[in-house]
């Protein structure tokens, strides 16, 4: 019974006008929540937390680097779940959402790579190190770019979405393997990995801003996902009646 309700609910959401309305209502709230959490987190991260005794102030980069990295990976998980739903039940809105997750995930991966590289400069003395985390993030960026490129290369967007969903699932199996192999590779080649955190365990005052920032990035991802999906839906359905009606009402 519950299963049935969930399925019916999904199909209701699968209706483009319903989904469009949902996105329009929910996305601004998510953005607002993200802004509040980020403001909170950033204030704490920049003013309240004392400098680390080993890394001094440079560890503050952690508060954007780590949430972005986690979100880049969590975003991929979200896309995988959506891809499974899209492939099994062929619900169009989930296909679209799975596809629109890719550019956002890529953006977070980019944040992670850029801030990681900036952090590396004072800590390791180089902009880039073949560190396990950075390397697997770089590969993840290519996975995201592959998904985006594949989807964009199809004229029939539904077909493109389904093909790219297969790629998402292949990547889901592949990403842990990449991560593991890269980690192994760097430990073999470097003797010991360079650790961001050094010996010091995190001070208890360092945690709350991180949590706030993690929540903020989650909300940002959700909001951006809904925003982009809404646009994609309108673009695909531009000749359909419901878009015309909506436009007529707003014009």
């Amino acid at each position: 019974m519950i299963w049935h309700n969930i399925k019916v609910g999904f199909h209701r959401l699968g209706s483009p006008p319903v989904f469009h309305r949902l996105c329009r209502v929910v996305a601004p709230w998510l953005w607002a929540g993200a802004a509040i959490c980020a403001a909170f987190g950033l204030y704490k991260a920049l003013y309240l937390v004392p400098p680390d005794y080993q890394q001094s102030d440079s560890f503050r980069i952690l508060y954007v680097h780590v949430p972005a990295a986690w979100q880049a990976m969590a975003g991929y998980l979200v896309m995988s779940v959506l891809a499974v739903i899209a492939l099994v039940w062929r619900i169009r809105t989930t296909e679209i959402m799975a596809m629109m997750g890719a550019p956002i995930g890529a953006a977070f991966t980019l944040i992670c790579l850029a801030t990681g590289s900036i952090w590396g400069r004072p800590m390791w003395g180089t902009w880039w190190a073949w560190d396990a985390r950075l390397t697997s993030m770089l590969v993840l960026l290519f996975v995201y770019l592959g998904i985006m490129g594949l989807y964009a290369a199809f004229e029939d967007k539904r077909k493109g979405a389904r093909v790219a969903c297969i790629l998402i699932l292949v990547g889901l199996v592949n990403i842990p393997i990449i991560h593991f192999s890269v980690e192994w590779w760097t430990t073999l080649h470097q003797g010991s990995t360079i650790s961001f955190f050094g010996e010091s365990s995190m001070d208890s005052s360092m945690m709350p801003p991180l949590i706030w920032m993690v929540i903020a990035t989650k909300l940002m991802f959700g909001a951006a996902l809904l925003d982009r999906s809404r646009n994609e839906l309108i673009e695909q359905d531009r000749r359909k009646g419901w878009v015309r009606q909506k436009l007529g009402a707003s014009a």
Partner: protein
Amino acid sequence: MTRAMLALLRRDLRLAVRHGGESLMPLVFLFAVLILVPLGVGPGPNLLSAIAPGMVWVAALLASLLALEHLFRPDLDDGTLEQWWTGETPVGLLVMTRLFSHWLITGLPVIVFAPVAAQMLYLPDRALSTLVVSLLIGTPLLSLIGGLASALTLGTNRGSVLLSILIFPLVVPVLIFATGAVSAAADGLSARAHLGLLSALLILAVTLIPLATTAALRLNIE
């Protein structure tokens, strides 16, 4: 069922022989790399033997990539690909057959000439057997990965750039484990762990990739 697979294999190989030039490409490529690399980095034995595993493997990878354009595309264009779905043989098996012939054309020559390559790049003799074993396990993986990527991009008209972007993340672990094995053997260490992981990857790929490839082909065939 096996009759159909054998028929397909036979036809693929016959076509490969008939386009003699194209099927020699992997070898030409391997030797181009083997000659150009010493010219580029200098003939010093130390440097060459250090980069030998990587060079042989990159040559194998690129040789496999070269032939991917012709893996499914000609069959799509002349209508023979759609016939795969009209018969009684599961398409996954036909996909495996096609990948096997791709491996015979691109992977096997590299394996056969790997000892020559190893000599030219001063790979220590004790690493030679590991190099061959790593190629034996790893080149089928390259064919499987390439097959998946070319099936995914079959329905697009600008496949080749996309193909490389899709393949890159997938081959990272293969390259790491394979070259790791050869380097370990060259340093006189055991390559068992690397080769074991590589075999695990192969088993995983053999079970999953034909499924994904078949699904992608089906979507792209119209």
